[in-house]
């Protein structure tokens, strides 16, 4: 016996279980073919348009900017926790503070660049606008 | 004190200088740079004579001039350029520079006076050729020899194809280049093998490869395994290496089966034929064997092969010479045949004899070619002997010198060729009777060839010079000037007398061994390992060659008789006012000979009608197997490439899938091999 057998069993069970359930239900369930069942919403709501809607790219930009701050927070948080005790232990300011300032400084350069290049100004897509007005007409 | 050896590099450099001058400034020089070439070769000749005299004073020279790749440790080899001046190379230097000088002078008449264009190119080629040949002669190691050997081949390509606007010369040049190159591949492999085995390629001295090989033989001084023989018995391995080098020799010296390029090379200008394809370049092969004779002497197998190739080529080429119409073709086949004799001599243990024949042949064959050139000038570049006749009266100088050369070629006493050819045959005979019976076969072939030689030589002489003029041109030939006659006279005298330096039969008869000058010349010398005495010892100890004692008189008379018989037959048949084409009576044999045994195309062996299937098989082999392999390799790679392209579908999910599959396969294979899953 070795431990790989357990992993192999896990794999086998993982595949066999869902397939077994699907097969079992396919065997047991009654078959009543009816048109209403193929509708998207069985409640009767008639869907309009397609499912492929284009979001405004701006949401994506905001998400990216958010990510930057997110990661920043992840790094700053543990740093703040140990900062005071580190200073108390006698770690010099240049070792405790300066690296974090450099880190934030780099992020600031990036943020300023993104800002200046219009990442946070809400742009309107002329094409999307045109499509919207077309639909309303 | 500054001696001859300090100036020896200039022997090589002077013609090279003339090459540069002709190449760069030939257009602006009078005669297209001819005088530069004449001056340079004359300088080389003078220096060669000086070297010769110094060497005859008992001094020799074996020194490295320049190391172009220095080995860093004991095991690595150094590649060097150096000079080896001993009796053999000193003699060869004189031959090469003398013939080169005469050919340069002759070219004034043959090229300049005939109003050829492109002369700077011509003289540049001659200069480079002379330089490379001289460099080859003085080379002190096999690699340097190989480099100059290749340069010589290149020059021959350039010069044969001199008239590159015509159809024949370029293809002849290509053929010469390719066929000799084929042999040189083996040579190159041989050079590498020599380096790999001995770690040096020097010809002479205590660290030379023939000497190391000698010590490494069973019973030699070196312990077993002193040299790496790649798992073979030393003698076997040395035979293999020797035969590889021999590949280059066979190509360059136009021996069977790589002789086919030489007759075609006659497409080049006649002085070039004289210089390159008769007297010097073709000699390079034979010279190389003589140069490393100490190596070949260790292997009776290699010697027997050399002797057989030589004897067979001698006979084979002589028969083809019998039926040729063009004067230069006859000479071409006689050249092949004569080099066959030299190889026979070397293979039969007659180192001195072969060297002797090399020397005499250089003189009389250069003479014959230059004489033929003179005839060709006179005949307005018509080479067909059947259009000549009766030229004897019109051009007496050419006739008498040509006759001298012909007598030498046919081996009629006392002209040069008799002494040397006779000695070659004598050596084959005595060593054959002395136990190496195989040599008797080679001897027989050589002996039969004597008859043919006498016949075709005098057929040529009679057709060209005797009888009635058969065409308008022959009745009123074009005159030639001093620059043609001069070289002819010099060579004519040499052809008549050069044999006197080594009259073995006479010495035997009169009991005066002192007159065998060449024997003494090659036997002495400061480098012990390259003397003929040493070679004789080697032959006896290693190759088991023993000479029976036999008077040279009887064999000499036999071969003289055969030569006279051949000449006499030619006299009866062709020395009439209007000769008939007697060789037509030979019927199918004539067709065979005339077409060179159908040797020209290597695939087509015998007759067009008989062996066409064989030819077709060869063709099929070439098309199907050789081309097929070549095409196959390329199409396989293209096909495989196409497959790879197909994998690259452009669909990124396929890539991800293949990537994962590949990784999984690697994990599985290495996991199972490394036992990771246990």
């Amino acid at each position, binding site marked *: 016996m070795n431990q*790989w057998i357990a992993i192999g069993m896990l794999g086998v069970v993982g595949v066999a279980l869902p397939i077994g359930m699907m097969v079992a239900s396919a065997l047991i369930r009654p078959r009543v073919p009816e048109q209403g069942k193929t509708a998207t919403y069985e409640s009767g709501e008639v869907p309009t348009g397609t499912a492929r809607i284009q979001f405004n790219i701006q949401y994506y930009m905001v998400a990216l900017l958010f990510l930057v701050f997110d990661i920043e927070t992840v790094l700053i948080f543990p740093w703040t926790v140990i900062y005071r005790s580190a200073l108390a232990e006698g770690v010099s300011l240049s070792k405790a503070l300066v690296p974090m300032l450099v880190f934030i400084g*780099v992020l600031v*350069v*990036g943020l*300023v*660049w993104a*800002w*200046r*290049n*219009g990442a946070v100004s809400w742009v309107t897509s002329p094409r999307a606008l045109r499509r919207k007005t077309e639909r309303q007409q | 004190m500054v001696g001859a050896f300090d100036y020896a590099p200039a022997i090589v450099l002077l013609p090279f200088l003339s090459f540069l001058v002709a190449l760069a400034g030939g257009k602006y020089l009078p005669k297209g740079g001819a005088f530069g070439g004449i001056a340079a070769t004359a300088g080389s000749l003078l220096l060669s004579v000086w070297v010769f005299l110094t060497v005859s004073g008992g001094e020799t020279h074996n020194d490295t001039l320049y190391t172009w790749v220095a080995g860093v440790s004991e095991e690595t080899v150094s590649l060097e350029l150096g000079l080896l001046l001993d009796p053999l190379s000193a003699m060869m230097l004189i031959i090469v520079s003398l013939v080169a000088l005469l050919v340069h002078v002759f070219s004034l008449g043959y090229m300049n006076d005939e109003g050829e264009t492109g002369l700077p190119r011509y003289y540049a080629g001659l200069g480079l050729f002379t330089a490379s040949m001289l460099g080859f002669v003085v080379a002190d190691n096999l690699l340097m020899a190989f480099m100059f050997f290749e340069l010589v081949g290149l020059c021959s390509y350039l010069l044969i194809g001199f008239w590159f606007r015509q159809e024949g010369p370029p293809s002849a040049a290509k053929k010469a280049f390719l066929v000799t190159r084929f042999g040189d591949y083996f040579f190159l492999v041989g050079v590498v093998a020599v380096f790999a085995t001995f770690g040096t390629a020097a010809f002479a001295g205590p660290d030379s490869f023939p000497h190391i090989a000698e010590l490494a033989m069973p019973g030699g001084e070196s312990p077993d395994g002193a040299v790496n023989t790649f798992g073979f018995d030393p003698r076997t391995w040395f035979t293999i290496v020797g035969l590889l080098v021999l590949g280059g020799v066979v190509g360059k010296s136009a021996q069977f089966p790589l002789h086919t390029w030489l007759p075609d090379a006659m497409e080049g200008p006649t002085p070039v034929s004289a210089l390159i394809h008769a007297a010097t370049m073709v000699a390079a092969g034979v010279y190389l064997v003589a140069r490393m004779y100490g190596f070949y002497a260790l292997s009776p197998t290699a010697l027997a092969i050399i002797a057989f190739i030589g004897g067979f080529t001698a006979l084979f080429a002589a028969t083809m010479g019998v039926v040729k119409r063009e004067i230069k073709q006859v000479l071409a086949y006689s050249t092949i045949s004569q080099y066959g004799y030299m190889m026979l001599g070397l293979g039969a243990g007659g180192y001195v004899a072969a060297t002797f024949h090399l020397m005499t042949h250089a003189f009389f064959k250069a003479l014959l070619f230059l004489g033929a050139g003179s005839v060709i000038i006179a005949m307005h570049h018509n080479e067909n002997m059947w259009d000549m006749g009766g030229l004897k009266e019109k051009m007496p100088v050419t006739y008498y010198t040509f006759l001298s050369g012909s007598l030498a070629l046919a081996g009629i006493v006392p002209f040069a060729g008799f002494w040397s050819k006779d000695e070659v045959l004598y050596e084959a005979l005595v060593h054959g009777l002395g136990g190496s019976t195989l040599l008797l076969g080679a001897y027989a072939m050589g002996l039969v060839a004597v008859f043919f030689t006498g016949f075709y030589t005098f057929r040529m002489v009679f057709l060209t010079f005797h009888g009635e003029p058969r065409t308008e041109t022959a009745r009123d030939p074009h005159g030639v000037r001093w620059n043609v006659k001069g070289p002819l006279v010099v060579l004519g005298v040499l052809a008549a007398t050069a044999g006197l330096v080594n009259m073995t039969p006479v010495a035997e008869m009169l009991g005066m061994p002192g007159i065998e000058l060449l024997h003494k010349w090659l036997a002495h010398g400061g480098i012990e390992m390259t003397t003929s005495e040493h070679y004789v010892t080697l032959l006896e100890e290693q190759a088991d060659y023993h000479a029976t004692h036999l008077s040279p008189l009887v064999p000499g008379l036999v071969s003289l008789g055969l030569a006279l018989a051949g000449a006499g037959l030619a006299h009866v048949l062709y020395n009439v006012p209007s000769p008939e084409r007697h060789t037509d009576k030979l019927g199918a044999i004539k067709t065979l000979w005339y077409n060179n045994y159908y040797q020209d195309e290597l695939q087509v062996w015998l007759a067009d009608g008989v062996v066409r299937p064989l030819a077709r098989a060869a063709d099929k082999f070439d098309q199907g197997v050789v081309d097929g392999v070549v095409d196959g390799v*390329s199409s396989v*790679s*293209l096909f*495989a*490439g*196409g497959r*790879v*392209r197909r994998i*690259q579908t*452009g669909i*990124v999910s396929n*890539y*991800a899938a*293949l*990537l*994962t*599959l*590949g*990784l999984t396969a*690697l*994990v599985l294979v*290495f*996991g199972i*091999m*490394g*036992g*990771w*899953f*246990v």
Partner: protein
Amino acid sequence: MQLPSWAALGPALVLALTALVLLGLDSIDPDSTHSSALAGISALGALSALGLAGWYLLAGTGQASTGGPILLYGDALVVDGMSLFFSVIFASVAAMVIVASYDYLKGRTYQAEFYSLVMLAATGMTLMASSNSLASVFVSLELASLPSYALVAFLKRNEGSVEAGLKYFLIGAVSSAVFAFGISLVYAVTGSLLLSDVASGLVDAGDFVGVAGVGVLLIAGGFAFKTASVPFHFWAPEAYEGAPAPISAFLSSASKAAGFAVAFRVFVEAFPIASVVPMGIDWPLLFAVLAVVTMTLGNFAAATQENVKRMLAYSSIGHAGYALIGLAALSQGGPNGQVMGASMAHLLVYGFMNTGAFLFIALVEHWEVGRTFEDYNGLATKAPVACTAMTVFMFSLAGLPPFGGFLSKYALFYSAVQGGFWWLAAVGAINSALSLFYYSRVVKAMWIEEPSTPFELESKPVGLYVAVMFAAVGTLLLLPGFGPVVETAQTAATALFA
């Protein structure tokens, strides 16, 4: 005067600083492009990084003569001969690419972003060469990769470029996942990410050899992606073909070299042959297999291409196979420093000749001549100088004397033979011979063929010409200068094994 130890990272710091300066400049005036100023600053940055790296390398910083490797930031980074050697490669390739881009980008927007992305990628590569812990390896690898994805897709209006960028990114994501998984497995076994600790941890792997083996193999996969080796090569032909030609040059030369730099260090330091191979984790054999497959596949595929840029892309895969010999021909007690050093030297020479070849493509794209071999017909009549340079690159790539590529390949194969891996050298030599076929096709098209339609070349872009010439001169000078180069590389590599 003794510089502070952090100054040893000077090349990387200079490159990063340049990137920030470029971004800052663009923030001040985002709406207009000052191409000369931007290109000038970037070139200055790259050249100062090159100067610093070269100076350190010559001064012996981080080498045995001055007290051995300099370890920084809790041993996460290390500066030694090898990292400096590779910094020289990255900085010189970046400099050439920047100079060439000046003309290539003429009239395009987002130039500041382009240059700063190049500098950031170069920073990442320099850090890759200095990484001493699997964490910094991963971070620096991503720092090099992410700007590369954006750069490949730089031609926003060009479908090929965008598609190539996306594919590169997707394959890159898969490979990063594989790589990260590998790191996690190794960490699980050894309990450390520092290379030296990993090495000592592996000794007591005990029952977990299998886990460690899979981890090592997955890490190798991550490097194979970066070096474009089979089976992680799929992105390369598309990305090199679709990307702007200077970026193709950058990726195929510098980025590939970076992959090798980090692979050399990680495998030698973290998975020493002496302890790992007897355990059944035979990674030299793995790389031998990859090397043979990669060089064969790259060369065979290159032979059938019609598009010159794509041909170069495949040839670059083939060259990855040659360089892999530096990892494959290693054995316990073999001349490992020689082998790896020869591979490093080959990467340096390759950096020049391959960059030059791609920059020539950039030049041709600039002229809008066309992309296939036929389109190159008769190019030499119009631009003989550039075509001479291209001929040098082609023959050098094929490994013909008397060009730099000959000696580096020779040294590589020779050292492989010395190490007893003659069959690897033989496969390499056969592939080199095959490669001559398609390299000479370019030369033949340029010099011998007649142009099918007459064409005129309107301009001679100075920057591109300068970059191409610089690469050509570099390729030629590396023939006489190869001795010191290979010596430096082999010393640096030997120090790694010590």
